Structure formats: structure tokens, C-alpha cells
């Protein structure tokens, strides 16, 4: 157990060290820009995985909280002077916490229904949020959008602060995800996914557990949204709360491996840069949507568990076979050691 934890810690440190080094090694704007979107989707997918992967609820409204975070930050800095370019990064913390708290009553309401009903009702949450964003002109600017104060960073390393802030956010959400999966709490979530009624029968306080996962998901998604708004500087309802982004996050989670720690991160880093990159290089292939649909279906049918569990299984089998082969001479070897 402790050995596994140690290996996990080393792995995490290595990955984050590499990610931390990236903007200093590859200083090209476009690389850091694409990596920023990769990180953003990783945060979104890991956050979604808390409720969608661990607890098995197809939560289609999370992108509404992305938009909520975006608007919260943008509206805040309509009223607060931008004394320092780094101020909005710190403002994200209270915004994330506030969104998490706001999401709790909604969670209590929504989580009364399950499975497909939950999915539909959560999609309705997204639509309703979008309608509000459009119609509350005074607050959100409505369809005219809302501009952020321009980030006063130097042009040569303009993207770097955003990248690093998103990396910190990823570390935080990964830590939560890891901690939840390791703790009793994670067990409870898995129990809910397996059979919620039985879990409740066994004394799992299913509602509490679900609501906490839900609030964490919403809080982190909102923080990512705020950071996105600051980076993109101009937000419109249809982009801040885009159903297609929602499904892209889910696809990333499934591709990497839902319910796993690293799966959503991997899925995001495979798909998000690929999307930007192919849109750029293939320039307007009309087959974009069809290719996307085909990819979606391929993942669903041929990699339903995702890359991480599939590869892990493959490696485990491989290692077991190796162990069987090696089992003969091992006692002798141990004696020598």
C-alpha cells in the first residue's frame, strides 16, 4: 500500500515537474497557448470525473458552472480595479468556494433523480443557465458579451501566468481526486455507482457523499471558467456554456478512463490539443463533425473503459506472465540477494 502510494507520488511529481518546465522550455506562444487549453480541459475532465466517473452520474450541467465562474470573475472586475494582473488569479479562490457552496442546494434538488432522468434534468440546468446569461443583460451584457479588463502581462511571456495558474488548479483538483479515491469517501462513491440503494441500505450517507462530490466538481469547473474568461478576455453566453464543450469533456474522460485518477488528464491532453491542432492544419475539412462523431463512437464501443484501465490491464497481464516465467529460479535469486 505505502509502496503504491510512493510510486504514485513519484509519478505525480514527475508529471507536474514536466508540465511546470514546459512553458520555460517551449517558449513559443502558440505552444503555451495550446498547452493552456490542454490543462484547462484536464481540470474540467478531472472535476467532471468526480461525479461522472466516481459516482456514475452523467452530469451534463457542469459547463453551466464553467460559465458561472467566467461571469463571476468578469463581473467582479467590472467593479474592482485591476491593480495587479495577478489579482484575478487570487480572486478565483473565493469564487470557486462560493460556486461550490451555491451548487449545494442545486445538488440536493437534482440528486433526487438518477440515471437518464438526472442526465436530462442536468441538461435542462445548462439550458436554463444559458437563458439567464442571455437575458440578464444588466449583469452579463446579454448577447453582447462581457469584456474582462486586459491582462497587463508582457507580450513575450504573455501566456505563462495563465498557464501556471491553470497548472496550480490542475494540481489542486488532482489532489482532491486522489484524496477522494483513496479515502473512505471514494469507496462510498464507488458503492453509489455500483448500487445506490444497496449502498444506502449498508448505511452509506449517499446524499452527503454525492453532494460533496458535486460541489467540488462545480467549484473547480467554475474556477477553470474564471481563468478561461480572463485569458480569452471576452465572453459570450453561447461559448461560456456550450453543450458541445460539455460533451467534449465527457468524451475526454471516457477516452482516458472514467473513474480513474489519470484517465481524464490523459484524455484531455490527447484530445484538446488535437482539436486545436487539426482545426489549424487541416483547415476546414467539412468532415470535422463526422470525424468527431466517429471518434466518439469508436471510444464508446472499442475503448469503453478508456485508455488508462485498458493499458493497465494489458501491463498487468504481461507482468503476471513474466512473473510466472520467472517464478522457477526466483528462490535461488533471493538467496543470492
Amino acid at each position, binding site marked *: 500500500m505505502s509502496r503504491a502510494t510512493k510510486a504514485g507520488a513519484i509519478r505525480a511529481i514527475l508529471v507536474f515537474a514536466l508540465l511546470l518546465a514546459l512553458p520555460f522550455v517551449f517558449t513559443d506562444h502558440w505552444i503555451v497557448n495550446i498547452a493552456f487549453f490542454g490543462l484547462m480541459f484536464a481540470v474540467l475532465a478531472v472535476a467532471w470525473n468526480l461525479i461522472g466517473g466516481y459516482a*456514475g452520474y*452523467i452530469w*451534463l450541467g457542469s459547463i453551466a458552472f464553467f460559465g458561472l465562474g467566467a461571469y463571476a470573475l468578469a463581473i467582479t472586475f467590472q467593479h474592482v480595479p485591476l491593480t495587479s494582473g495577478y489579482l484575478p488569479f487570487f480572486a478565483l479562490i473565493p469564487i470557486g468556494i462560493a460556486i461550490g457552496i451555491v451548487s449545494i442546494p442545486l445538488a440536493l*434538488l437534482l440528486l*433526487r*433523480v438518477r*440515471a*437518464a*432522468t438526472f*442526465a*436530462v*434534468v442536468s*441538461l*435542462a440546468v445548462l*439550458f*436554463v443557465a444559458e*437563458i*439567464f446569461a*442571455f*437575458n440578464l443583460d444588466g449583469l452579463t451584457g446579454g448577447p453582447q458579451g462581457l469584456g474582462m479588463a486586459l491582462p497587463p502581462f508582457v507580450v513575450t511571456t504573455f501566456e505563462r501566468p495563465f498557464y501556471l495558474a491553470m497548472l496550480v488548479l490542475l494540481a489542486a483538483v488532482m489532489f482532491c481526486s486522489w484524496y477522494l479515491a483513496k479515502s473512505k469517501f471514494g469507496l462510498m462513491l464507488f458503492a453509489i455507482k455500483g448500487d445506490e440503494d444497496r449502498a444506502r441500505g449498508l448505511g452509506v450517507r449517499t446524499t452527503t457523499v454525492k453532494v460533496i462530490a458535486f460541489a467540488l466538481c462545480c467549484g473547480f469547473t467554475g474556477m477553470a471558467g474564471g481563468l478561461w474568461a480572463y485569458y480569452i478576455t471576452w465572453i459570450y453566453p453561447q461559448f461560456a456554456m456550450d*453543450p*458541445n464543450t460539455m*460533451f467534449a469533456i*465527457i*468524451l475526454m474522460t*471516457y477516452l482516458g478512463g472514467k473513474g480513474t485518477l489519470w484517465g481524464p488528464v490523459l484524455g484531455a491532453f490527447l484530445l484538446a490539443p488535437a482539436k486545436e491542432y487539426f482545426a489549424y492544419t487541416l483547415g476546414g475539412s*467539412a*468532415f*470535422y*463533425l*463526422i470525424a*468527431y*462523431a*466517429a471518434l*466518439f*463512437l469508436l471510444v*464508446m*464501443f472499442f475503448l*469503453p473503459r478508456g485508455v488508462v484501465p485498458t493499458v493497465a490491464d494489458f501491463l498487468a497481464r504481461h507482468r503476471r506472465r513474466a512473473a510466472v516465467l520467472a517464478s522457477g529460479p526466483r528462490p535461488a535469486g533471493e538467496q543470492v540477494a
Partner: protein
Amino acid sequence: MHLLIYGCILGILLGGVYGLMASGLALVWGIMRVLNIAQAVCVILGSYLAFTAFTVLHVDPMLAVLPISVVMFVFGVGIYYAFLRPIRRDRESLSILVTYAIAIGIEGALGLIYTTSLQHTGTSYATQSFEVGGFQIPTVELYAFLISVAILGLLALMLQRTRLGRALRAATQNPTAARLLGVDIDRVSAVGFGIGISTAAAAGAVYGMIYSFNPNSHYDLIGILLAIVVLGGFGSMRGAIVAALILGVIASVVFIYWPLWANLSFFGVVVVVLLFRPQGLWGVPNWATQ
């Protein structure tokens, strides 16, 4: 007051068409626990088929409804065997994602064939109307309503009176017992999905005479259809039809006075009803899963 009544009339006319679209969604859910996100894009597909029949073959969309239904039935059966039958595990949740992928795939294909320009099936009577008691009744919307009612009537008759209809209803209400009585759930599901898709396309054929549409139009529609099905109670066709009429009237009336908030009123009604009746207005008791 005059406007209010007029709003109700228009709401009922439109609600009938939505009822036809949503009843297929409810039927499919009832039989196989699949939430077909692609239902709306099939409506648009039906609109395009009718549009093509009208502009190329000069066939009136009202007449095209029948061949379109047949073609789309076959299409639906094909979709079922290709994409839905293979989902064994976690069908309720996975089917949402799979049918979403199907939806954007069809959207992409429509974009390739027809481009994303707005189209409209402009029949000679597209802008005609006649007056009844001081109300201008749009001819197209009345025809669309009547066609929808006729198809729904035929569907109801089929469900009530035929062997296949009994099997469909049986599979919805108690799949295990239906299997014990010799119902091949797989085949019934395929047929049910085919019917669901063909009703969507039939509704689409008439929808295309009322509204301009392009391949993206299904995003707006699916929200409405899902709201209707949730309000009516999952899996209940009767519920879907009644909910479609209720929501049609509410949306039309709100539209007259506060157009911006019509969509919200739509979802608002759904949320309020769900608070008090989580199973919707006519939730089908499914004894096998209780």
C-alpha cells in the same frame, strides 16, 4: 384577451407537432431505456427529405410524409442494430452519449450534403391562412397539426389493436414478463426504435413547412423534446402528447407577451412539476424495475 386565446390556439397547433416528435422519444425510452438525443436531428433529417422531395421531385410534403416514414423506419432499425444493440452495460447512461455522437454525425452529413444555409419547404400554401371567429389560422400549421394527429391516431390504433402493438406496450410495461410470453425484445426494440425515428421524420416533414431550418437546428429542438418527455413522464406516449400541448400553449402565450422568457417558462414548468412529481405527469410504473 383576443391575443391570449389566439396564443392558445397556435400553441395547440404547434403542440400537436411537438407531440408527434416527442411521442417517438417516449416510445423508445419506454421499450429500451434509451434516451435518443438524435431524435431532434432525425426531425431535421425528415425536413430535409421533404424539402428535397418538394424541390427536386415536386412532391407535396404532406404526400411525402408516408414514403419518408418508411425510409426513416428502415434507417432507425439500422441505427438500432448498428449502435444501440451492442450497448449491453449501463445502457441508460451510455445511450445518451452514443446517440449524441449519432446526432452530430448526422448533422455533419447534412452539412456536407445541403450546406448550413437555411432552407424552407415553400409550398404554395406556406403563407396562407383563413379566418375563424376573428382569428387567422395559418393553413400550414393546421395541416401540420392534422397530419400529426392522424399519425398519432394511427400509432395509437396500432398499439391498441394489433399484435405488434400489444408486444410494444408489453415490452414497455414489463419486459421480463413479455419475454416469458415469447416476445423477442430485441426485435421489438428494433421496430420500436424504427417507429420512433419515423415519427420524428414525419413530424420533420411538416415542421420544415413552418420553420426555416439548417443542420444545426436540432440543438434547439432537442431541449424542447426532452422537456416534453420529462414533463409527460418518461416512457409515456400519452404523457408526451399532453405535455407537448401544455408546453406548446405556455410557450406560445408567453411568447406573445415576453418573447425572451418563453424558453425559460418552458423549462420552468418542467422544473416545478418535477419538484412535486419526480416521475412526471404520467410516469409509467415499470413493475419489473420497482
